[in-house]
């Protein structure tokens, strides 16, 4: 070989789980000192491929070459020894340990900790200078923001002498400003000769930062192209296998009379943290209000209050009538009776029961419906099942089999089941949390269309999403939440990601320029730690 050997070369990797072929004869070359993107829908096999590279799974067939040398990677120890570092989507950090302790964890030099800690402290200072990765080594993980936590993960890999970094969906939990900062770090790492593999489903990130991009679909590598030679539309088509509408197609809203009025809403959770602070807004029929914000800034609690299972003070009027906020006279059931339907943020733990069949899930929350009752004692399971069949066909759930367990459907089809259940109830107000989280591009298009259709029928819709694209594409008005407050309302055609990003960081003065450090400091000050894993 005359030219430089690829940092990573995979040849003919195949892996199946039972009857499912997760990776089919995959070959890929990643040149050293480049950023290589791997893009594909959920379940396309990206994570499986990376797990094989990191030693979590053993490939059924195929070979791995690191820097031109054939390498066996039976476990993650060997991956680390081969110079591979991995930053997982869900961080593997001990929350009550300091940054320094987390970096050293698993890479201690001996039985006594102190020498390792002293060494690691020096090393962290070096790494901070070299790559601009500043982190306070003595801060507790639970006290620093997600952006910082991600840096710690990168530092962990570098501390273990990684030359090849794999990042799995790294921007899922970051604000746009934090994502920019991450990309700057990655660019710096690349300059210093590191090789980076970036796994994502966001086309924008691929276009912004990668040198080369590989597209996966249904376990196969469908294409590898130079990023400069392609465009988002082409990549989307390669991912899905057909032309995809990337923009949401909608006409201007025709607002009718007010459906929801929220006045001076405050929520304090069971741990005593003030989650929602003096929030007021209204939504008219035929209108979508989008709530943007980094996860954990009070949006979830807002949905829960409207959905009937979180207590609050203040006032909420539905069609001019107040609803109970104390929890004494209300729950999810009474909200449904008031015409509120809810597609919850956490589909797998709230919206569906994974071990229930699809038809059982179709009654979930509506199991008190007298139509579902055969006689006063028994439910009419046949009727629910038949209804489910029809709804699944109308919402293009695949496969349209009401007897399958919820867990056997893909993320997109699970979400369609929830949407079918909630939208077909013809609610006055639809609450939608993260409608397309973990959903394939093809299904996103469908879900967005259904939400717009409901709007055009004159219903009010409250959309909560951490995806700014989604907020900008769907909403008729946008409110940004930060630290439990609404920082401001904007019209989608009069704002952009940059302005919303600043508002999401709590900076209302969006006209002047702000440094990244300023944004980060502001984010770190945001009240309380994130409530749940996102």
């Amino acid at each position, binding site marked *: 070989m005359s030219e430089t050997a690829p940092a990573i070369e995979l040849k003919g990797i195949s892996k199946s789980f*039972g*009857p*499912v072929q997760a990776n089919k004869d995959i070959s890929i070359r990643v040149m050293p000192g480049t950023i290589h993107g791997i893009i594909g829908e959920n379940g396309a096999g990206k994570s499986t491929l990376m797990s094989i590279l990191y030693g979590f799974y053993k490939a059924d067939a195929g070979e791995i070459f690191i820097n031109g040398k054939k390498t066996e990677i039976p476990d993650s120890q060997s991956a680390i020894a081969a110079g591979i570092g991995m930053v997982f989507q869900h961080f593997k950090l001990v929350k009550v340990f300091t940054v320094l302790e987390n970096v050293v964890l698993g890479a201690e030099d001996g039985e006594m900790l102190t020498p390792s800690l002293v060494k690691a402290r020096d090393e962290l200072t070096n790494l901070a200078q070299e790559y601009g990765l500043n982190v306070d080594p003595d801060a507790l993980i639970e006290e620093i923001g997600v952006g910082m936590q991600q840096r710690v993960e990168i530092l962990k890999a570098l501390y273990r002498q990684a030359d090849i970094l794999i990042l799995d969906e790294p921007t899922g939990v970051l604000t746009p400003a934090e994502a920019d900062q991450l990309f700057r770090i990655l660019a710096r790492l690349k300059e210093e000769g590191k090789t980076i593999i970036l796994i994502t489903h966001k086309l924008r990130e691929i276009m912004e930062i990668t040198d080369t991009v590989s597209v996966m679909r249904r376990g196969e590598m469908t294409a590898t192209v130079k990023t400069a030679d392609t465009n988002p539309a082409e990549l989307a088509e390669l991912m899905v296998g057909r032309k995809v509408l990337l923009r949401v197609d909608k006409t201007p809203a025709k607002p009718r009379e007010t459906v929801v009025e929220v006045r001076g809403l405050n929520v304090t959770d069971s741990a005593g943290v003030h989650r929602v602070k003096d929030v007021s807004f209204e939504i008219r029929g035929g209108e979508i209000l989008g709530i943007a914000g980094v996860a954990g800034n009070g949006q979830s609690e807002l949905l829960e209050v409207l*959905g*009937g*299972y979180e207590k609050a003070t203040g006032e909420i009027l539905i069609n001019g009538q107040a609803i109970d906020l104390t929890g004494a006279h209300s*729950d*999810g*059931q*009474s*909200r*449904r009776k008031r015409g509120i339907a*809810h597609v*919850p943020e*956490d589909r797998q*733990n*709230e*919206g*569906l*029961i*994974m*071990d*229930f069949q699809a038809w*059982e899930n179709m*009654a*979930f*929350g509506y*199991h*008190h419906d007298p139509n579902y*009752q055969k006689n006063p*004692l*028994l*439910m009419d*399971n046949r009727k629910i099942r038949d209804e489910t069949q029809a709804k699944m066909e109308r919402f293009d759930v695949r496969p349209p089999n009401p007897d399958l367990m919820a867990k*056997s459907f893909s993320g997109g089809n699970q979400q369609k089941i929830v949407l079918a259940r909630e939208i077909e109830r013809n609610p006055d107000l639809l609450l939608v949390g993260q409608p397309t989280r973990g959903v394939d591009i093809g299904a996103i298009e469908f879900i967005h269309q259904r939400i717009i259709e409901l709007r055009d029928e004159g219903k009010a819709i409250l959309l909560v999403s951490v995806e700014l694209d989604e907020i900008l594409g769907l909403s008729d008005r946008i409110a940004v939440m930060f630290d439990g407050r609404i920082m401001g309302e904007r019209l989608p055609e009069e704002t952009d990601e940059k302005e919303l990003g600043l508002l999401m960081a709590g900076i209302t003065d969006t006209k002047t320029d702000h440094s990244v450090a300023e944004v980060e400091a502001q984010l770190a000050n945001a009240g309380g730690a994130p409530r749940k894993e996102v």
Partner: protein
Amino acid sequence: MNELPRWADVVLVPLINIALAFIVAGLVVLAIGQNPIDMVYFMVKGALGSTSSIGYTLYYTTNFIFTGLAFAVAMNAKLFNIGGEGQAAIGGLGAALVLLAIDWPHWTLALPAAIIGASVFGAGWAAIPAYLQAKRGSHIVITTIMFNFIGAAILGYLLNGLLKKPGQQVPESRSFSEGAHLPNFHEMLQPFGIAFNKSAPANISFFLAIGAAILVWLLIWRSRIGYEIRAFGNSPGATLYAGISSVRVTIIAMLISGALAGMMAINVVMGEQERLIKDFVEGAGFMGIAVSLMGRNHPFGIVLAAFLFGMLNQGGFELMWEMPEISREMVLVIQALIIIFTGALVNMTRDPIEKIFLRLHKKGAA
């Protein structure tokens, strides 16, 4: 196909587990110099060899169906009710109080009254741990275990005092009146000209147990509260979203569970002893856990598993008689092995069997 076919899951896996249990038990028997074939022969003969043995087997089966169902109802709400033992004991107290209070003219009147007494007391005994779990967060496993001891102590206290038959030393109540006598299999089958051992304890409660199994099936898989119980058991977090009250579900599931455990006393106290005695539950409450696990918390499986455990129980007693070298402890070891293999180690064989099935299926498809 990506999982085991249902018939294999429900029938094949338990059969393989039972076979494995007998192989290991056989090795133990071999180790003490006895013939394992004889052991199996005497156990099966002892359990099913005559109408007397069948009568005993069905009597134990009845107990295990009730306690197994009791455990299963709570388990569908993911509540680990280990208190079947205590709930059955207190249920027995309830039945006995009803039967002692009145000189019942006929069993058809006495039985419904005793069912109410047993189930209300059993449910009442489960209600306290249920309340503590739902409202105060005390773990149900801990509280129900504690309540087993308290229940046994209460029963002992009453049988040594208030309820003790005057003028005797034994801690037991006086016998119930003639009218409270439940028909046994001999009496039920005689009109049809079928001979059945007169003294075998199996009685009409067996059919009560089968009826309870059908009702539990309807409750869990066909009724709204059953839907809520299963939803809560599968995903406690989701119930808030759906507006299902966790307090309500916890308490209802535990009340039903306690009532079923209490009804076991109908079979023993009313059907067999015809008086209240101390320690009449004899571990049936705990056995119900194994029965329910083996029966996959499903009423149909529970009836089958209860029958198997009834056979083991009765066959074990006969085995001691027929093979004196096999001691009572040895029989317990054999029973324990079967419980371990069929209950606790289900997944040990299930996963390999599933793999084999998938491979066969793949070949068939290719």
